[in-house]
């Protein structure tokens, strides 16, 4: 069939144009081919101009935006990481400081307590000393007073016994000597 066609075609092409012979013999719609090609080409150009171009633009823009967003997110993440680290360090520092302060305070308290105790102890010792001294001096004073009273009583008794007034001043020395002797004898 093909051979026939080509033979016919060769015969036809002698007197007709080649395109016309294609049309006539092969029943080839050359017009359709041209129309298809031109319509398709026009459609492609129109799509490129009106749809593909703008859409590509906006998709590129979006890709860029997303890239930027990712970058900025990465950056802010790094920053927050850094700040977190900083805060952690600060917290650690504060904790150490607080511990040191507590330690200091305790130490100070201990020394103060020891000081106060020592002071109190020495005060108590001092007061005891004083009290002892006072007691001793009071005792001496009391003894002296009793002694004096005793002398007076003795003189009064002696004067009563003797029936005569004897001069207190004259006999005091004598009496005191007696008392001292009595005290020794006892």
């Amino acid at each position, binding site marked *: 069939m093909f051979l026939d066609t080509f033979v016919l075609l060769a015969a036809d092409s002698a007197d007709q*144009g080649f*395109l*016309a012979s294609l*049309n006539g013999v092969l*029943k*080839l*719609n*050359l*017009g*359709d*081919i*041209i*129309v*298809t*090609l031109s*319509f*398709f080409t*026009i*459609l*492609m150009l*129109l*799509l*490129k101009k*009106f*749809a*593909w171009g*703008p*859409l*590509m633009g*906006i*998709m590129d*823009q*979006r890709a860029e*935006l997303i890239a930027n967003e990712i970058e900025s997110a990465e950056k802010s993440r790094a920053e927050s990481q850094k700040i977190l680290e900083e805060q952690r360090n600060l917290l650690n520092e504060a904790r150490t400081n607080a511990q040191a302060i507590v330690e200091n305070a305790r130490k100070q308290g201990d020394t103060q307590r020891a000081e106060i105790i020592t002071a109190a102890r020495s005060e108590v010792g001092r007061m005891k000393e004083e009290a002892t001294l006072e007691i001793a001096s009071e005792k001496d004073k009391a003894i002296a007073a009793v002694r004096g009273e005793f002398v007076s009583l003795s003189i009064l008794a002696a004067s009563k016994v003797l029936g005569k007034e004897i001069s207190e001043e004259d006999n005091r020395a004598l009496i005191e000597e007696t008392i001292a002797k009595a005290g020794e004898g006892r």
Partner: protein
Amino acid sequence: MNHENPTIEWLGLTFNLSNVLMLFITCLIVFLIAFFATRKMQLKPTGMQNFMEWIMDFVKGIIKNNMDWKTGGRFHVLGITLLMFVFVANVIGLPFSIQYDHKLWWKSPTADPTVTLTLAAMVVVLSHYYGIKLLGLKEYGNSYLKPMPFMAPLKVIEEFANTLTLGLRLYGNIYAGEVLLGLLATLGAGSVYGFVGALVPALAWQGFSLFIGAIQAFIFVMLSMVYMAHKVKTDH
């Protein structure tokens, strides 16, 4: 199903007016979808913008599967246009077909082998063009001698086979779908019983054709990019 094509001759060229009309409508629909989907664009996409971006990412994924994006980026628009164009062309004939004066006017433009083969040939020619442009004529010629020089004839045949299979696969799938839908519609229009009997199969087949249309559009773009990658890649 006995219909003719509304052809006219103009400047010695044959035009199938139904093809011209449907191609124009398809292009219009694709353009309107793409145009209105990309108005009022925002960084945070909503609604139709999401849809268009999904298509772009989808095609980008197809291309990235076959070659690196540095080479393949230039085919992005081509891939998007092919995907949307072929899909809309596949499904545009699904809801109805219009015949006027025994001439079929409203149908899928991809149910015509001329259109699909033109698209396929365009893709293959473009792949050769970019192969020469990116690799140089010498490297491009050498690619026919790999892996073995004696396989060069097969390589040449492969190019034609690629074109034919790429175009005819699409044509066959869509044309078969239209034929079956046409038969079901004829049955449905015949009588009340026919209508009841044809209703469920027609619905099922329309759904299936929608699926086929999407799959074929995807396959077309996928294979286009595969052929493109074969010609453009340096390492193979």
